[in-house]
C-alpha cells in the first residue's frame, strides 16, 4: 500500500457524492496501488463492488480491519488519459503556446487543455498559424470587448432636428447603402469565425465581436433610416454585385484584405465624413460610433495580414491578384450608384441651393481622394511599393466597400 492511502467517507453514499471523493483519492495512483475506504453508509459494500467492477479496479472487504473496504487499482487505471495531449498553452504570450498546425482533433477544447486521444477531428478550414494567427489579436479583442456600446443609450435618438425633405431622403439613402454594406461586413467575419480552429481563440473571438459590432451598426443605421421615413431607399444591382464578391471570398487572407483593409478602410473615411458633414446629431453620432469600431477592424486586418506576409512571401502577390480579379469581375457594373453619390453630395450640401451643392460636390470629391490616400497608406504598411499601392488602390471597387 502506497503511503497508507485512505479516504474517509463518513456516512456518505456513493449515490450521494462519495464517488467524487473516491475518484479524487484514486487520482494519480498506479495499477496495484491500494486505497483504504472508511465509511458507514449501509449500501457502501454493494455500491463499491459495482463501482469498482465498472472501473476495472478490485475491491475487498477485509474482516477485522478498521477500513470498510480496500480498493486495488486496476491495470487500465487512467489509461484514458495516457496519450492525452496538451493543446498548446492558455497564455498566448508563452513561447510555443500557439501551435503552428494544431491537430483538428483538438477540436473545441480550451487552448492548453489535456485532450483525450481519439477525440473526433473537426473540419476546420483555417488550421495554420501563419494564416490564422496574429499576436495583436488578444490586445485588440480586449479593446473591442471594452468598447462595446448600447445602441439604445449611446445615440441621442430624441435629439430635435428638422431637415429639408430632400436632405432627409438623402440621409435615408445613405443609411440604406450603409446597412447593405455592413451586412456584408457581418457575414464575412461570421463565416470565418465558424471555420477557424478554436486553438486561435482570440482571433475567433475578435471575428465574433466584429460580427457583433456590425450587427449593432446595422441596427443604428436602420433606426436612423426610419426616424423620419417609413421605408428605406434604393438598393442597386451594381452595389450588391460588389458586395457579393466579398461574401463569396473563400480565402481568409483575401477576404480580410478586401473587406477590412480596403473596404472598411475606405468606410472609415466615409463614416468620419458623415460624422463631420451629417446634417443632424443622430446621423453624426451613429457615424462616429461606427467609425470607432471600424478602426479596430481595419487595425486587426492590417496586423493579421502583416504577420501573415512575414511568414508567406507570396501573400502580397496573391492579394494584389485578388484586387485585380475583383476589379475585372466588377468592370461591367456601375460602381457607386448615382443615388448614393448624389445623396452624399446633398447630405453634405444641406440644401438644394446652388452654392451649397457646389460645396457638397467638392467635399465628396475630397472624400474620394482621402479614401484613396488611406488605402495607399495601408497598402504601403503591408509592404507594397508606392507604385504598387497607387495602382492597386485605383483598382478598388467604386462602391467603396
Amino acid at each position, binding site marked *: 500500500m502506497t503511503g497508507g492511502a485512505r479516504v474517509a467517507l463518513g456516512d456518505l453514499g456513493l449515490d450521494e457524492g462519495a464517488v467524487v471523493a473516491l475518484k479524487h483519492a484514486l487520482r494519480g495512483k498506479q495499477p496495484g496501488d491500494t486505497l483504504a475506504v472508511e465509511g458507514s453508509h449501509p449500501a457502501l459494500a454493494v455500491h463499491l463492488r*459495482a463501482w469498482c467492477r465498472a472501473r476495472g479496479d478490485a475491491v475487498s472487504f477485509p474482516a477485522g480491519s478498521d477500513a470498510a473496504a480496500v480498493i486495488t487499482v486496476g491495470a487500465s487505471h487512467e489509461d484514458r488519459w495516457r496519450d492525452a495531449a496538451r493543446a498548446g498553452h492558455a497564455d498566448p504570450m508563452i513561447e510555443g503556446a500557439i501551435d503552428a498546425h494544431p491537430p483538428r482533433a483538438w477540436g473545441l477544447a480550451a487552448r492548453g487543455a489535456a485532450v483525450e486521444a*481519439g477525440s473526433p477531428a473537426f473540419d476546420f478550414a483555417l488550421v495554420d498559424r501563419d494564416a490564422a494567427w496574429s499576436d495583436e489579436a488578444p490586445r485588440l479583442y480586449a479593446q473591442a470587448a471594452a468598447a462595446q456600446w448600447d445602441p439604445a443609450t449611446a445615440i441621442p435618438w430624441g435629439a430635435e432636428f428638422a431637415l429639408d425633405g430632400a436632405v432627409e431622403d438623402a440621409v435615408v439613402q445613405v443609411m440604406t447603402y450603409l446597412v447593405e454594406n455592413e451586412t456584408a461586413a457581418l457575414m464575412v467575419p461570421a463565416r470565418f469565425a465558424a471555420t477557424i480552429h478554436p486553438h486561435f481563440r482570440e482571433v475567433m473571438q475578435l471575428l465574433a465581436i466584429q460580427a457583433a459590432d456590425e450587427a449593432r451598426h446595422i441596427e443604428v443605421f436602420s433606426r436612423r433610416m426610419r426616424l423620419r421615413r417609413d421605408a428605406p431607399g434604393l438598393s442597386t444591382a451594381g452595389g450588391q454585385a460588389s458586395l457579393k464578391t466579398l461574401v463569396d471570398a473563400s480565402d481568409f487572407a483575401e477576404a480580410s484584405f478586401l473587406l477590412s483593409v480596403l473596404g472598411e478602410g475606405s468606410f472609415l473615411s466615409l463614416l468620419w465624413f458623415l460624422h463631420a458633414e451629417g446634417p443632424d446629431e443622430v446621423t453624426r453620432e451613429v457615424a462616429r460610433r461606427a467609425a470607432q469600431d471600424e478602426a479596430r477592424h481595419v487595425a486587426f486586418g492590417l496586423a493579421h495580414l502583416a504577420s501573415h506576409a512575414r511568414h508567406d512571401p507570396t501573400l502580397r502577390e496573391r492579394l494584389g491578384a485578388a484586387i485585380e480579379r475583383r476589379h475585372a469581375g466588377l468592370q461591367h457594373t456601375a460602381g457607386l450608384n448615382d443615388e448614393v453619390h448624389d445623396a452624399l453630395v446633398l447630405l453634405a450640401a444641406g440644401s438644394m441651393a446652388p452654392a451649397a451643392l457646389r460645396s457638397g460636390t467638392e467635399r465628396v470629391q475630397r472624400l474620394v481622394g482621402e479614401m484613396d490616400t488611406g488605402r495607399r497608406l495601408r497598402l504601403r504598411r503591408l509592404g507594397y511599393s508606392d507604385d504598387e499601392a497607387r495602382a492597386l488602390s485605383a483598382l478598388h471597387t467604386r462602391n467603396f466597400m
Partner: protein
Amino acid sequence: MNNSTLTLGAVAYDPKVVTIWDGFQRWFRAHELDFDYVLYTSYERQVAGHFRGEFTVAWNSPLAWLQTERVAARLGRAARAVAMRDTDQDLTSVVVVRADSPVTSIEQLRGRTVAVGAADSPQATLLPLDHLAAAGLVPEVDFAVRRFDLLVGKHGDHVGGERDAAYALATGAVDAACLIDGNHLSFSRDGTLPPGATRVLAQTAPYDHCCFTALAGDDDALVERFAALLLGQRHADPAVRPLMDLEGLREWRPGRTSGFAPLARAVARFGTIDAFVEELVAGHARP
C-alpha cells in the same frame, strides 16, 4: 460459410448493438481478421442458429450459455466460453425495499409483492428469486411476483425492465424490487430512485454474465485468433476505447464457466430452459 470469416451471432437488444459490432468489424479487419456478424431478435433464435451453423461465435447471455451448453451436451458436442468482459465477472443482484419499509428480513417479504425484470432475466429475475427461494420463500406461493416483461427473449439485456421495477418500488406499487448491484447505484445516482430512499435487503452470491461461446470443432483456429485479438485490446488504445466504453468494459478476460453455477441452480429450480432445450435437441435429432 466462408471459413476464413469469423462470423459472430449477437442479439439486437438495443440500436447501439449495430454501432458496436460495426466498430468491431472495422477494428478486426484492420487487424487482418475478416469479421462479420448476424443479429437475432432473441437469444433462443441465436442459440438455434448456432447449432444450424449460421455463425461461429455467439455473444451469449448467461442463460443462452446454459442453453447452448445443455443442447451441445445432448448432441454430443462441446461448448466453450471463449472470452468475457471484466465487468461480466462476479456481479451480484440485490433485493431492495424502501428505506422506510417495515421489512428488515427476507422472511418478512412473505405475503408481499416483489418486482422483477423480464421473465428470462438472470440478473433481475431468476437469480434474485432463486436467492429468496433458497431462503425459504417460494415465488408466487409465499409472495407475489410482479413481472416487468420488457423484451422477452433478450434475457434482460435491456435495462428497461429493471428500471420499471425500480419505479414500481419508488412509487409504492410493490414492496421490493430486484436489480443488479450496479443498476441500484446508477438508478440512485440518476434519480430513478431518490438517493437514500431505498435499502438493500438481500444480495445474491457473485455470478458471471455474458460470454463469447464457441462449439468445439467449428473453425477452432479462427476462434483462437479472434480470442487472441480480443484479449489484446487495451483501453489505452483510442481506436478501440469507444467500443470498449460502449460495451462497458476495461479489459477482456479468458472465458470461465464457474460463474454460471448460481444460474444453473436457479434454472434447475424453476425449469426455465428445459422445454427450449428439449425442443432444440428434438429438432436436431429428426432425420
